[in-house]
């Protein structure tokens, strides 16, 4: 991914900025110009909405044949997270052993390195998910 293509989405990747449809209150991440539910009525009525970063694991896998940028982390865990705002996000799970992962597990977004353009290039940062431990968050 080139630098501008990544830079354009920094707000989403760093801070989880999505949108909420003014008509039906549905939340979308990443942002959409048009609510797939309200269609043309929603145009111009999609307002910025920051996700809480909290969610639950919907499904997951341990990857042994990695995405090239994730080789050093292999095996690593990928999951689809059902966020508090009823929107789903794909991300890596960190800070947890695969054997301890289960559907419904509570997780929280955390910023990590995702990859890099090249060894000389821009570093990509973005959200991954860590388990919510004990009383915290």
């Amino acid at each position, binding site marked *: 991914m080139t630098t501008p293509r990544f830079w354009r989405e920094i707000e989403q990747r760093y801070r989880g900025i999505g949108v909420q449809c003014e008509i039906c209150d549905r939340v979308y991440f990443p942002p959409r110009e048009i609510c797939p539910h309200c269609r043309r009525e929603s145009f111009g009525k999609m307002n910025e909405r920051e996700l809480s970063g909290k969610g639950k694991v919907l499904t997951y*896998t341990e990857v042994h044949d990695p995405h090239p940028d994730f080789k050093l982390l292999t095996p690593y865990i990928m999951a689809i997270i059902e966020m508090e705002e009823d929107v789903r996000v*794909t991300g890596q799970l960190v800070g947890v052993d695969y054997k301890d992962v289960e559907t419904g597990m509570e997780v929280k977004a955390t910023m990590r390195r995702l990859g890099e353009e090249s060894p000389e290039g821009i570093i990509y940062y973005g959200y991954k998910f860590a388990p919510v431990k004990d009383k915290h968050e």
Partner: protein
Amino acid sequence: MRDVAIIGIGETQIGELWDKSLRELGIEAGLKAIRDAGVSGEEVDMLYVGNMSAGKLINQEHVAPMIADYAGLDDIPAVRIESGGASGGMALAEGYISVASGFDDIVVVGGAEKMTDVNDEEAKKILSSTADQEWETVCGATFDSLHAMMARYHMNKYGTTKDQFAEVIVKNHSNASNNPNAQYPRAIPKNFVMNAPMVSDPLGMFDCAPLSDGGAAVVLCPAEYVDNYNGDPVKILGVGHGADHIALHDRREIGGMKATRIAAEKAFKNSNISSKDIDFAEVHDNYSISEIVAIEDLGFFKKGEGGPATEEGRTALNSEISINTSGGLKAKGQPVGAVGINQAIEAAIQLRGDAGDRQVEDARYGLTHNVGGTGASAVVHILERWSE
């Protein structure tokens, strides 16, 4: 709308074809199909080529005119159709529409992919690019892992097992053992599948279709003209397209494919038949889980019963419904852009009664099911045995 027939078929061997280029694969398949149909080059009105990613795999865009050119058909309009893994099936649908509408009479629909000119890692990355690059793959998802998450979800929700996944693979390899064009024309024991190295849990190496080179082509003409040509015709009874969100996480259903259901509903409606009438189907088994999901969403089995049905042998050759008699993407091979055409060719071979040891007895209706990405696009064709 006119009825449309397939009057010629042609495909290359599928596999790691080191000595063949993309244009050679396209030409070989195209010439075989034209010869099979008994049409001459001048009669062809239009060429559609299904191809997923020549731009990335061989750094060549504009491949349809290139293939037409080297086939000696340089004055025939040629267009490439891309819809991820469904490129071939979508190209076939375009060909069908242009003949059915009366716009063209003789249309050649080809599909080709050259995947081994880049290394495995690069090829897999390119395959993953049919998922959402910005919100899935950048975050670490691979094409394998997205299907693995579907598999995990299906297991959790419906109790599907790794054993049942393995049964899909064993069956498809067994079918491929009777298909000379297959990349892996041999049966494999279940313990091979179960004990294969893990790719993305719960999917092992044998749960995943291979990276393949291959080309395939069919010749279409209006049903009313079939007698003008030598080719042994089969009828395209109906076509249906389906669509869904590009990213797996955006779909309300992770253990099923809405795109498949929509495509199937439309195709059945256009054909005036139902899933019960289908004798055999070529479904998009790029992963073991994909076949289980497909046979449920196509209406052959209830949701959640795809795994047990496979385990009980109800999808084996000449059982309740014969699924992937060719060996499927898993064992016949996965030359991505050609897959949809390879499926139509298998259907034609079965309906012509030319399938030899893998022949479905008294086959009348066949279905082909081709999926793009992790389910953002799907196309279903229903084919019928020719009757005068």
